[in-house]
């Protein structure tokens, strides 16, 4: 069966959604991710949606569900790279994803995750070591 790959980077999981997902594929991703978080003990989940041309209420709900379930499993979630047209449309649709952290790109998303987990970024750690 078709699946969206989930990459492991340290104790973060990274998902890059590049296809126009049909609903079942989105549900599978949601299940796969929760299963991986609990199996690996990951503390952060990064979902890159920069290639997505739309987010409707179904995908929006999937993102909110992932963030909610991850939280229960003690992991922080950040959604990165939402395109302006997608964001404008989502707001008009009536979805503001209140419980979901966001960032402009994967790098910034990593920083948001580290921050959320109370860990210094590499630069901050370096600066600390020098001073």
């Amino acid at each position, binding site marked *: 069966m078709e699946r969206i790959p989930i990459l492991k980077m340290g104790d973060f999981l990274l998902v890059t959604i590049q296809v*126009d*997902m*049909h609903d079942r594929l989105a549900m599978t991703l949601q299940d796969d991710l929760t299963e991986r978080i609990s199996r690996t003990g990951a503390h952060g989940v990064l979902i890159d949606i920069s290639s997505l*041309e739309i987010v*409707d*209420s*179904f995908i*929006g709900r999937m993102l909110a569900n992932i963030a909610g379930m991850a939280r229960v499993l003690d992991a922080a979630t950040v959604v990165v790279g939402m395109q302006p047209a997608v964001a404008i449309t989502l707001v*008009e649709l*009536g979805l503001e994803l209140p419980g979901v952290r966001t960032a402009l790109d994967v790098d910034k998303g990593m920083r948001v995750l580290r921050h959320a987990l109370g860990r210094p970024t590499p630069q901050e750690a370096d600066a600390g070591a020098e001073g």
Partner: protein
Amino acid sequence: MPALKDEMLPIRADSDIVLVRQAARSWSIDAGFSLVEQTKMVTAASELARNTLVYGGGGTVRLEALEENGRRGLRLTFEDRGPGIPDLELALRDGFSTGTGLGLGLSGSRRLVNEFSIESQRGEGTRVVIARWR
């Protein structure tokens, strides 16, 4: 006003919703819509196609390229022969869902388009018509 071009697509499976999104995208581009306009139309199409499948038990969408007084537009008509909607006003309320959805499909897609109309007969089916203009 007759359409310049029209096409009918079936909505019978998950994968058909993807095809409806793709068709709505390419017809929106042909109508000269800006990226934001395209995105709004495709998102509305996705919501309504899913309703047709999930609540209507499957059906069809008809795409029509429009032109009026030199303005271009796109009309989508979703039709099913499902159970119908007993209370339209309630169904159009933000957050109302009889399923597991967020209840934003109907109310939200109404905000994404310029024209929105819905007809439903209990036991006979539902028809939703939306249109956007350049």
